[in-house]
């Protein structure tokens, strides 16, 4: 009975944060129709796949008597093979994600969480196991996991720029990294390399604010990072625009190269675009990934 009130209050506050994110994520996820995700072969699973004649070696318990009673032969009912995949997610919670250039836009972190949670919901609906990278939340299936994910997504991070967690990767699992990738690229590269070593394939979704893409600044300006750890003063911000855009393009190119080398996929999403398109891309990329990888 120690300090129930703060605990309760915090719980309420946490809980109050869930529904909007969760609801929007559910809503977003609802726009994607599931399909083409079965294994298309008989195996352990719940859905009917086919009846086949009894073969020697099948135990009599496996005979589907209802079907067999219609004819002289005995049949065994086979189900479609359904195997759950593990998908590990990393959604950047760092300070740099908490930025929006005007009131009409979402913060980058908000969009990132929304997309992350939405894709998690879709995956869990599809029977996959979803967790976070690292050891905090191992992949599990079921609706409970959605709530846990939403809880963890709602916790802001302290760092100015985020670094992907690459420990405890499950071999041959799938991974989703969502961030603005504005921080140093080395940790990203290390993480991708580790993942590739373990046969993990995945996607990098880069979420950017339109202002970061356009750099609409002029005049004497002091730029500060959101966490306040970095600052840069310029007398003519307008003059920096071209060089900034050049660097941004280089960074995107570097990310794409890394992905290409490791078999990952890279996509850049802006917060002024519809979240649905990014979700669709994510879903497609995840769906395509393993089979494409298997094929390759």
């Amino acid at each position: 009975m120690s300090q129930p009130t703060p605990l309760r209050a915090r719980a309420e506050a946490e809980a109050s944060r869930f529904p909007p994110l969760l609801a929007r994520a559910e809503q977003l996820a609802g726009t994607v129709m599931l399909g083409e995700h079965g294994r298309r072969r008989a195996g352990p699973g719940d859905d009917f796949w086919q009846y086949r004649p009894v073969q020697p070696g099948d135990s009599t318990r496996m005979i589907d008597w209802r079907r067999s009673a219609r004819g002289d032969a005995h049949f065994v009912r086979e189900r479609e093979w359904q195997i759950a995949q593990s998908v590990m997610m990393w959604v950047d919670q760092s300070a740099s994600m908490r930025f929006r250039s005007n009131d009409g836009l979402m913060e980058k972190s908000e969009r990132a969480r929304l997309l992350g949670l939405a894709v998690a919901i879709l995956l869990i609906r599809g029977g996959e196991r979803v967790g976070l990278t690292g050891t905090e939340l191992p992949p599990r299936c079921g609706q409970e996991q959605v709530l846990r994910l939403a809880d963890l997504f709602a916790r802001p991070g302290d760092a100015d720029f985020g670094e992907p967690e690459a420990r405890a990767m499950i071999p041959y699992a799938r991974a989703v990294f969502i961030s603005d990738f504005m921080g140093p690229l080395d940790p990203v590269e290390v993480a991708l390399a580790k993942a590739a070593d373990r046969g993990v394939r995945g996607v990098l979704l880069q979420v950017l604010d339109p202002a970061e893409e356009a750099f609409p600044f002029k005049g004497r300006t002091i730029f500060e990072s959101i966490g306040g750890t970095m600052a840069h003063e310029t007398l003519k911000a307008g003059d920096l625009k071209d060089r900034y855009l050049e660097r941004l393009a280089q960074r995107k190119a570097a990310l794409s190269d890394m992905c290409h080398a490791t078999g990952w996929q890279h996509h850049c999403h802006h917060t002024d675009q519809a979240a649905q398109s990014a979700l669709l891309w994510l879903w497609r990329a995840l769906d395509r990934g393993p089979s494409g990888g298997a094929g390759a």
Partner: protein
Amino acid sequence: MMIGPIGFAAPWLLVGLIALPILWLILRAVPPAPIRRRFPGVALLLGLRDEDSVSDRTPWWLLLLRALAVAAVIVGLAGPVLNPDREGNANAGDLLVVLDGSWAGAAAWPARADAIDRLLAEAGRNGRRAAILRLTQPKPVQFQSSEALRARLEGFAPLAWEPRAAFMAEAAAQLGEASFDTVWFSDGLALEGREALLTRLESRGTVRVVEQAGPVLALGPATLEGAELTVKALRSRAGPAQKVTIAAQGRDPAGNPAVLATVPAVFAEGAMEAGASLSLPAELRARITRFELSQARSAGSVSLSDDNLRRREVALIGGRDDRESLDVLSPLHFLRKALQPSADLIEGALMDVLPANPDVIILADIATLAPSEAASLQDWVSKGGMLLRFAGPRLAASETGRGADEPLMPVRLRAGGRTLGGAMSWGAPKKLAPFPEDSPFYGLPIPDEVTVASQVMAQPDPTLADRVIAQLSDGTPLVTRKRVDQGQVVLFHVTGNAEWSNLPLSGLFVSMLERLAVSSLVGRPAPEDLEGTSWQPLTMLDATGRVRDASNLPGVDGAALVAAPLGPNLRPGLYEGKQRILARNVIGVDRSLQPAAWPARIRVEGLTRPAETPLGGYLLALAILLLAADAVATLALSGRLTAARAGRVAGVLALAIIDMPGLPRAQEVPPAPAEQRSATDDTAAIAATRELVLAHILTGDRKLDDMAQAGLLGLSDTLFFRTSVEPSAPVGVDLERDEIAFYPLLYWPVTPEQPLPSAEAYAKLNRYLRAGGMILFDTRDADVARFGAASPNGRMLQRLAKALDIPPLEPLPADHVLTRTFYLLQDFPGRHNSRDVWVEAAPPDTEQVEGMPFRNLNDGVTPVVIGGNDWAAAWATDDRGNPLYPVGRGFAGERQRELAMRFGVNLVMHVLTGNYKSDQVHVPALLDRLGQ
């Protein structure tokens, strides 16, 4: 300091404008403050260097905006004034202001006074002394401090006359020796002797003339031609066509000043005069006191009217005219004909016309007057009336004027009179002798054919010679006159008709009446006529045309009054003489206005000039606006002005503008007190008239009122179920407050405790009864009392009904229409079963026709039904239709209740259908029903 039309109060401040370029340089050099921005992309910026070490400059247009704002502040503080007054500072000598000071400038005097005030103020600022010379009343010129003169400026207001040449000469003589500059404020009229004065002034210094634009308007005197008044408007300059309005002012019958008539006068293009004529009833015309030009306010635009416009009121009193004679034989006929064109005639009895205070009373052959009549007449004569008597047979036969000198007879008469040239006399009819010089008729030509056949003769007397004003050729008096105090008595020794002489047939007769001032005096008197008379001013006009009391002014000589020009000693106004009132107007009969002509060398300016307008405030406001624009522009430049902020700023600015004082603001109208009373009245009225509603009078006894309500409810239900009358819920009405006209039937239970209605309520009830309403009075005591004052309720009913308009009553007859309007009834029971039910009595002359079951009674609905059967109790039901009160016993009781209901139905049917069932058309059906 002047730049174009703009002057500066503090020109040295303009030096500050030099600082503007410096400001420009400073603003250019100082970069705008850095903006702090949170930006995640800063990581990509690290290590980037600025190519150009100079920061962004403030854009040139923003600099220009700021420079303009500062310039506006500097110029605004320097006190710029548009059209500053800078006349007359050229010289530093003394300043003489010459004013025409005539009536012509009265209308524009306020503007002129302003101009003079400005001039003097300017002169005061420049330390010049000044003097004012008003030509209508020249005084020696004394230069003094301009400020002191400004305070006395009102003392130089225009006067009601024009400067004469004599005044000009006098002014010129009083100029003194000093040299000075002159500003001459001219009224725009040509003046005699102006040239000489102008030359004198020019010899002392420069002369500038200020003259008002536009013509001077004036109004000539009104003249009466026949019944038409002609008025002439004048203007000093021929110009485009112009329309002016002439108003005839006077007193209305209550004695209040009023405009009696207005008439437009139109100056044709290039014309200097505009005539207008108006035709007014003599009564109205006599009340006109003056004519005014509505467009101009000056003494010249006012024309006072005097006796010239008045028509004399003449009372004609003839003797008893008891014979059926021709008009031409009437003693008054010729008088009437002679006076009608020029005088207002009154005819009637003497005592009737005296209160009208006529100017002249003519007694035609009236010999004797009642003592009271004589006294009143004498009183009237002594107050200035003129009594004109004509002789005749009655006067000749009477004893009037025989003995003593009678006050109402100019001479003593000899008995009888004489007849000349008749069949029984020797002499021929006499002709008139030429009029003596002291006679009012002097100079009138005497036609040869005028002869006198009969006359009354004057008794020779020492005073006779003085009193004769016309005589016959033999020296006998024909007309005699005697003055009585202020009035006079004149006697024509002949008749007013042609019986005794043919004088009344001649033109001479009319002329003589005119001379006697019996008919109006037309035309103005000549100066020589008024020689030696003295006239007392009654009222005078000031320069603006207002009428002032003039009783403190000395009298003027008659000749001067007519001939002398106006001046301080002869002001325009009304002058009263012995017998008449003369008006002296500014504009004479043959006056025309001439515009002032100035030599070409004189500078003539208009009176109006552009007003001084300080511009400093506008410039400072402009500076503030520029600075506000600068603030917005700076925000926008530095990227701090987002759309949301811009909206907010715009809102704040709009608020600031709206809040600025001086902008009209919607008045906050306090919500009108809701007239709830009338609203509820209306809803009640609508509810009462949408459906038929039965009503009962509220007696104040709660239980009784409830019972009445329940009874009417039961009756309403019964009507609803059995007939096509479908009443809605009954109501109780308060006689004092509620309108009762909506209800066809009022049930009035009588209780001794109820208050008597007020007088208004009784008026309402009577109105209701007369308009066809019916009241059912129920004393509810038929079990113990009969109709009459036997019971308390009966006595109360008598008191209640005393003030009501109730016709004679009779017990309900067996053939009354109430017995068959719906049901056929013989009894009318309620809770009690008494036959004592009274209704309006049938007319006494109706008789039952043999073989008919009822009389032919087709008139109206009985306004009251009076009984004591306590019907409401029998009708009363609760909401579910159960009877509330017991009636009788057993089946008999139920039958009685049913009959009570039927009576109620019949009653309502009677109210609603009147005597429909009384029509004989229904006889066969009724007979059939009755089984006969």
